[in-house]
């Protein structure tokens, strides 16, 4: 029973907080973080099924057919090996892009002259489609691990560099002055001042880079690799198996979703945990 409280004015009020705190937290989390994406996916699925049934086309398979293909892909021997290979290439390429972007971005963020010098290259890099890098790298490096890694580096680095430059510009100058006065060591400045201060920009850049990477790697694997998700997609395409193409896309999308929700968001929460302490 909810206890009633007598207020000074003689009116009756009830406590705002009901039930246990942890239960409410879970309910809030479900409502905010789980229901919206699930609702979105459900609406898309229903829309797709309606379209498939109304068109009766081999090119638009129904949900049940796609589900069977997903099952086939998931249980096929080596399916996760293919996904693992693609992920490995993404991680190596993105890491390369991240390191290069960090060094170049910090330098350009601190020097207007260097930024002006690099600007044409960055704009060019942002406008060149991933397809061009994929083709060029396959021509240059052939069927080797260098093709996807370099293509990813070139495709992702410009967008990441822009984020790093913005992050550098957003660092509070008064903290840099403080570090100068206290003679904080260069590596300590990098790891304890610059990188944490830039963390929101780095994380959003990494997210964007990761989604770009997926688009580039598929192209490289289609054109110049004999393994990976892109290669499998190409195989399904050559057999005109639309459900197979969608199934590989869904399975890999699910893996990327796990990385986004299971890894990047946990990382983000850990990096920004200081923001969630009570402010006095």
């Amino acid at each position, binding site marked *: 029973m909810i206890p009633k409280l007598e207020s000074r004015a003689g009116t009756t009020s009830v406590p705002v907080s009901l039930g246990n705190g942890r239960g409410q937290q879970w309910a809030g989390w479900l409502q905010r973080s789980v229901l919206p994406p699930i609702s979105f996916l459900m609406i898309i699925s229903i829309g797709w099924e309606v379209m498939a049934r109304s068109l009766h086309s081999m090119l638009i398979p129904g949900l049940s057919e796609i589900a069977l293909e997903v099952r086939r892909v998931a249980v096929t021997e080596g399916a996760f090996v293919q996904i693992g290979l693609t992920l490995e290439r993404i991680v190596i390429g993105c890491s390369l892009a991240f390191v290069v972007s960090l060094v170049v971005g910090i330098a350009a963020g601190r020097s207007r002259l260097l930024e002006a010098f690099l600007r044409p290259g960055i704009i060019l890099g942002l406008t060149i489609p991933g397809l061009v890098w994929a083709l060029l790298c396959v021509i240059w490096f052939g069927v080797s691990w260098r093709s996807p890694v370099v293509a990813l580096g070139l495709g992702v680095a410009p967008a990441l560099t822009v984020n790093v430059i913005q992050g550098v510009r957003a660092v509070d100058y008064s903290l840099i002055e403080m570090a100068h006065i*206290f003679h904080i060591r260069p590596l300590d400045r990098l790891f304890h001042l610059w990188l944490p201060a830039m963390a929101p920009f780095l994380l959003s850049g990494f997210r964007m880079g990761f989604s770009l990477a997926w688009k580039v790697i598929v192209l490289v694997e289609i054109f110049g690799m004999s393994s990976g998700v892109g290669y499998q997609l190409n195989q399904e395409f050559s057999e005109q198996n639309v459900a197979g193409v969608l199934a590989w896309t869904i399975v890999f999308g699910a893996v990327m979703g796990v990385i986004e929700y299971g890894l990047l968001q946990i990382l983000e929460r850990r990096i920004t945990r200081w923001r969630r302490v009570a402010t006095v």
Partner: protein
Amino acid sequence: MSGGIIFENVSKSFRMARTGGVRQILHNFSLEVAEGELVALVGPSGIGKTTLLHLAAGLDRTDSGEVQIDLPADRCRVGMVFQQPRLLEWRTVEKNISLATDAAQVPREEGRSMLEAVHLGAHAHAFPMSLSGGERQRVALARAFAIKPGIVLMDEPFSALDEITGRRLRQLVQELWLNHNPSGLLITHNTLEAAFLADRVVVLSGQPCSIRKIVRVPVSRPRNPDDLRLFECHREIVDALLSSEAAPA
């Protein structure tokens, strides 16, 4: 007088971003802060007090003249307390201090004992955001004194705090000064604060900035904030400020 901080014929001017003109802030400015002495700089806003502090901290360079830290090598470290605490919000209180002590090659225990000295030992593992404004400024004080500084520079350190918190922190600074005895410069607009904390109060005026008057505070530490002699000094400082305002530019 043996020097802690020596400004010798210092000149400094700035280019005005809006007009493109040059504004001379300091012209052949000289001042000595003795070892163990705390000198307060008071004067109107924009006169050049912060410029003097930045020159002493090595954040800026003189156009001509010299700023020297005339102390033994092991006492040359500079600690600074700013108007805002300038803490790294993503590091705990203890880790904010250890960053400075590590750089100064001072044992981390100094940081911990300094946190105890400013009565924040229990908050060592808290993030700065969870602290009040006064507590955050106490962390900044602990950081400045934990590096065993020969010089402590303070730029309006209590101006953003309420009166009671400011009064407590002034007492704390007095205790720290008694225990560590660094040389220092204090910028403040609070003339009572200047009289309470400083050994000498330098009243600045004019453009470029010059010394209008030096008021010596003849009260030994520890001082009582209600000591009438401090009020006399305060009146003297205010009179000097008022007369500099009335004087033709």
